């Protein structure tokens, strides 16, 4: 570690973004674990969405509507992939807020999940009705 890095600057002299563990103080470890479990729950939810999407594409018999399986399966996979990344960001923001003693930031994740699943359900209903 160089003197510049000690002062929180990189080699070009611009201030370095502090690492997570350098911010504030360690929160009660139980909260850190709770945050970690919440992230893992979100990642399992993401995986469930992705695997359901793959199952729709690979295992369902074809609808009479052309591209019917893709209309349902692709949004599921995309939603799951996006959620997995956004959930990490949420974990990071929660951890940061706890270290700095700030209130937890509001989360858009539940809304994204609820709206996404509802939209896919509507698509599935339409495909099922039209593709009869």
């Amino acid at each position: 570690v160089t003197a510049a890095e000690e002062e929180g600057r990189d080699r070009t002299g611009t201030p370095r973004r502090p690492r997570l563990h350098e911010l504030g103080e360690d929160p009660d470890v139980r909260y850190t674990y709770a945050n970690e479990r919440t992230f893992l729950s979100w990642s399992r939810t993401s995986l469930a969405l992705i695997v359901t999407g793959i199952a729709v594409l690979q295992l369902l018999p074809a609808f009479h509507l052309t591209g019917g399986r893709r209309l349902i399966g692709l949004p599921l996979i995309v939603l799951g992939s996006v959620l997995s990344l956004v959930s990490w960001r949420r974990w990071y923001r929660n951890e940061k807020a706890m270290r700095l003693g700030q209130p937890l930031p509001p989360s858009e994740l539940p809304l994204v999940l609820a709206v996404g699943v509802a939209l896919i359900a509507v698509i599935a209903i339409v495909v099922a009705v039209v593709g009869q």
Partner: protein
Amino acid sequence: VSRAGGSDADTDRADALAEQRTTLAWTRSGLALLGALAVLARRVWNDGGSSAGFLAVALLGAATLTWAVGIAAWHLRRRPHQAEPRRPGELLAIALATTAVGLCGLIVTVVT
């Protein structure tokens, strides 16, 4: 370090239980991936090998990473009687692995 109330013994017990719940959550995540892998492996077997094999490899990689990060790597690193939460990069690895499974799904869909 700020602590939620209670005596020292209470705090130690609560920490140990929180740690156990977290390790169980990692175990469930690994099992969820392996379960998905089992379904796909069966399909690959029935088809005599197909693009589903590509997805199976992605799932197996993600499952291995989950176990390695959540259980093995953490056990190697931790010291006795001391809490050791996972690090940001380790959680990011899981998020990226999950996204990779999704990407493989998209690629397989486009290819087949």
